[in-house]
């Protein structure tokens, strides 16, 4: 299998889906000549023309609404909002409209639209450009929220997102674009709403997604050297949430730690921990711990930013504490 970057994998997914279905078009901020703020749409205009790859003004409300309208009009738009921080300006179209059309209008019409955006911190961009706001959108029934961690997942999930008949938020991570990995060639899809055991283990389950899935894998390697075999579950899709894979793992390992870049309060970890407690309480040998972003707006200074975002060291520490505390 060829080894390509996360960015290239996304580009390939767009290219393949646009080739497959003429109703797929891309519009958004700087997607044409610039090739997208993170280079994902690079070169697409050369192959598909300016009718299918269109720049927009910096007007997220307009982009969001136009994407919903275009989907209602029979297209399958992929709208690039640049970053999740700007998606807040499009949240009327996403939350008030895209998420509601099918239900509020009595099932007459669904909205097959993909909103692509970058999320996460770690690039010293300060607090308005470093947010992990996926919880905000994952909270909303009617939306799907996808958070790929690897190039292969990025490609397979984006292809599925474009083919899905529902509004999908596709949240890429700013620090993953240059990450390389094996990606199958040609047609392959990864279903939305399916988590994956990315590393098998018997002692504890680490539940993570997006870049934190890679952090969890790194932590698992380190833990292994100390005799603890962690199983790593990558959620991949936050809504719909695949709890079965998480529960199956926890029933095997009897312990869980969640790892997320978002703030802890009301976060993904809170949801996962609660669901494990509801459905697998009898299997637990220890409380569920949460490793999460520090509850502050992200600072610019490198040392402060690093202190705010979870890393493998913090995950290892949390796991070890759990074992010490429960006397294993």
């Amino acid at each position: 299998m060829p080894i390509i970057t996360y960015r290239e994998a996304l580009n390939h997914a767009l290219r393949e889906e646009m080739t497959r279905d003429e109703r797929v078009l891309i519009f958004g901020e700087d997607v044409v000549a610039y090739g997208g703020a993170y280079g994902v749409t690079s070169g697409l205009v050369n192959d598909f023309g300016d009718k299918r790859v269109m720049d927009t003004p910096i007007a997220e409300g307009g982009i969001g609404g136009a994407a919903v309208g275009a989907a209602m009009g029979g297209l399958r738009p992929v709208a690039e909002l640049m970053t999740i921080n700007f998606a807040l300006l499009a949240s009327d179209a996403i939350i008030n409209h895209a998420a509601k059309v099918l239900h509020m209008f009595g099932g007459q019409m669904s909205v097959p639209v993909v909103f692509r955006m970058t999320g996460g911190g770690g690039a010293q961009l300060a607090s308005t450009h470093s947010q992990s706001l996926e919880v905000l959108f994952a909270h909303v029934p009617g939306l799907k929220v996808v958070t790929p961690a690897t190039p292969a997942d990025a490609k397979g999930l984006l292809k599925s997102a474009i083919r899905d008949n529902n509004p999908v938020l596709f949240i890429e991570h700013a620090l993953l674009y240059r990450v390389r990995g094996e990606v199958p060639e040609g047609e392959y899809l990864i279903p939305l709403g399916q988590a994956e055991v990315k590393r098998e283990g018997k002692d504890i389950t680490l539940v993570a997604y997006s870049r934190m899935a890679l952090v969890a894998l790194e932590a698992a390697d380190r833990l292994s050297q100390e005799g603890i075999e962690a199983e790593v579950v990558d959620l991949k899709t936050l809504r719909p949430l695949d709890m079965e894979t998480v529960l199956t793992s926890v029933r095997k390992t009897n312990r869980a730690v969640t790892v997320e870049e978002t703030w802890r309060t009301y976060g993904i970890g809170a949801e996962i921990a609660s669901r494990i407690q509801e459905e697998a309480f009898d299997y637990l040998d220890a409380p569920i711990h949460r490793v999460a972003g520090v509850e502050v707006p992200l600072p610019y200074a490198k040392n402060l930013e690093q202190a705010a975002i979870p890393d493998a060291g913090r995950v290892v520490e949390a796991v070890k504490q759990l074992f010490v505390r429960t006397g294993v």
Partner: protein
Amino acid sequence: MEASTVAKIAGPGLDKKTLLNFLHQMLLIRKFEDKSGELYARGKIAGFLHLYNGQEASAVGAISTLAEHDLLITHYRDHGYAIARGLDLNRCMAELLGKATGIVKGHGGSMHFFDVSLGMLGGWAIVAGHLPLAVGLGLASNYLGKQQVVLCVFGDGATNNGYFHEALNMAKLWKVPVVFLCENNLYGMGTAVHRASATLEMSRKAAPHGIPAQRVDGMDVLAVREATTKAVEHARRGDGPFFLEVLTYRFRGHSMADPILYRDKAEVEEWKQRDPIVIFRQRLEKEGLLSPQEMEQIERETDELVVEAVRFAEESPDPPLTDLYKDIYADP
């Protein structure tokens, strides 16, 4: 012979049957709204209920210019547009009563009428939020070569919102076939237009975006029709968006929950002198196009339709509880 009598009142394409149908539609909307208000007062209709009384000429005049395959997207005061577009009156009333037979199965209520088979794409309740959607619909029309014109209706209040300007700017850039129809009824909820808008002419707000615009008397169904005809032709030709400002007035409050403390009774009475239904009726009578018998027949037919709609709605079942979880996600 009909043709000779028609020439005085309007241009080509307006025969007596069409004119009487306009009166019929306006009256039907008025009666539907009056009955809805009554049912609301009796507790049979809940939620927000924004009645359209006084603005009937706008919906009937504008919708009459659309082709069957054109699209319509409106704001929350949507009953008039829905009825003028031909949505099933029984199912509209059933929606207001929250019944399973409602036009959107009781999921949307008054503000969210929708019928994809008639190109009526809502009923949207966030002020100005649907304007960018109209741009997307127009984009799809151009992209797919469908030559669908999109009629996008909103109130004067929406023109002060950022979405309005984002939508107009993108509409012009993308040259989409959207007719932006602003119903200026002088109040955004309870705030008079001069307290909310730095300019009192909504049509001037199209100018910065290079979109041609026109103001029209919204109490005159034929004036609205004439202006919308031009606007629709402009869009259909591929010349891009057009902006219409329809000057009108709502006779009742913003919604049924509105105690109307913010405007003079004298002002309301003054506007009621210009009731679009009365004016049009008098005009038809004067031109010899409407006999007392014909008027009586229109009255009777519209009464019967509303009575039947209420009967249908009241006899319809509530949505089954199993509906609660339906239509959240479409099959992949």
